[in-house]
């Protein structure tokens, strides 16, 4: 089947979700997140798919 047909169901759910979110009165809840610097040593953010760790196929 085509992606467009598939998008029909899920994309509608996403659009409905965004519409619902827009209707919520979030007055007073504006600060969704505040960046706070932290000391070093907290680890390195993970890279999706770990491309730097690809060493070959699973041989098991």
């Amino acid at each position: 089947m085509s992606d467009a047909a598939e998008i029909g169901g899920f994309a509608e759910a996403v659009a409905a979700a965004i519409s619902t979110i827009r209707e919520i009165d979030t007055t007073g809840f504006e600060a969704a997140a505040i960046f706070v610097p932290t000391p070093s040593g907290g680890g390195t953010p993970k890279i999706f798919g770990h491309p730097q760790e690809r060493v070959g196929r699973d041989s098991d």
Partner: protein
Amino acid sequence: MSNIEPAPAPATEPVSTYDSITQIAPKIERGELSPVELVEASLSRISQHDSGPHGLNAFLGVWSDQAIADARAAEKAISSGGYLGPLHGIPVGLKDLIDVAGRETTGGSKVLAGNIAKSDSRVAKKLRAAGAILIGKLNLVEFAIGTTGLNPTTGDVKNPWDRTHITAGSSSGSAAAVASGMIPAALGTDTGGSVRMPASLCGISGLKPTYGRVSRSGVLDLSWSMDHIGPMTRTTADCALMMNVLAGHDASDPASSHEPVPDFTSGFTEGLGSLKIGVPTDYFFSDSVDSEVLALVRTAIDLMSRNGAEIVELPMPWAEKGRAINLGVIICEVVAVHEKIISEHADLYTPAVRSRIQSGFNVSAIDYIRAQRARQWFNHHMAESMHQVDVLITPTVPIQTPTIADCTPSPGNPGGGLELPLFTGVFDVTGQPSHSVPCGFSTGGMPIGMMITGHPFDEVTVLRVGSAYETLTDWHQRPPADIPDVT
């Protein structure tokens, strides 16, 4: 199922493949049960029930030789007085989003074929340190982007209770493997309900811990602000034993909590007395929920009331916004995670998952911020309601288990199952601990689950309620009819 080494002959000693860790561990500690026999029994079970046209298709890879070698080492250590605790010698499977050193992490996708992890994820490392035997990787929805458990790339996972039905997902293989007695425990991940939904539909226990309680380090992202890793087991007590190993701060996960880690079994002797159980008066118990699901969950609540719990009815009209917020955040973060790779390798994604990701391309940054603000709004309301109770009890999913055919997309039909996460997704938004336990069966013989949700970082009370309920019922002890015990 693929990448499976030949299984050894069945164990010479009878091992009940439906025994819980709580039942198995004392036998291993006393030397009455060999970890080698236990692992061989699991491998035999996997060989018998997972492959072929009628197989469950729960595993993507089984590490027979290494598992037996690890079991022999465990047996030797235990016989020398080196027993490490309840997971020592217990075979555990991992959803294939979770790195194990030297093993492929594919996310159930062609996109990551050949992606060998250089090191263990934090959870794999913790399981190894506790003496668990890592036995293989478990099937899932491609990149965990979906709720039915179907995956055209790796093959659909079948529900052990009726193989024409879905397991739900995305931790589909984890649920099927535990529910069929192949292994006593597995790890899943939960962003919209992917531990609890398949636990519910397959008749097992599944815990989504508090966000930040279990490290996500070495686990592929779906939606980083809502991703949780949790145990899937036969009983609530086993979830607690797993949590005793898995929980704790990890500096390599930016969201990892510094909260003290309790003994997650510590509430088990207290029963239900003095606990206030909140029962929402709307949304989770609305007329749109399947009537059999409602009846079974209400019966469970009545039982807990008769055994000492105080029932508090809670209006929660705002709860109906929860899944929308959950999906609104997920879709933005999943696009951010996949944007670069899908632009380069779109053809390697299955059409369904590719289209789900693409459906987020037109969601704006301001909508993402709106979703995060709505999340704060939602959490405020949830905290006010939770202030009145110790836990909430709700159905885990609002519908009965659909068939695989019902959920398979076809021209003009996007496929069913979109209702599955309506309840579970609420608690990924709030990050509260949330646990599914079996509470009965439909007239069609499929398991129905009940969800117990507690205050942030109070998994002890959630597990206490689940354990107390399991002492009053035997739903969790019933195996699927056509997958009998070997003893």
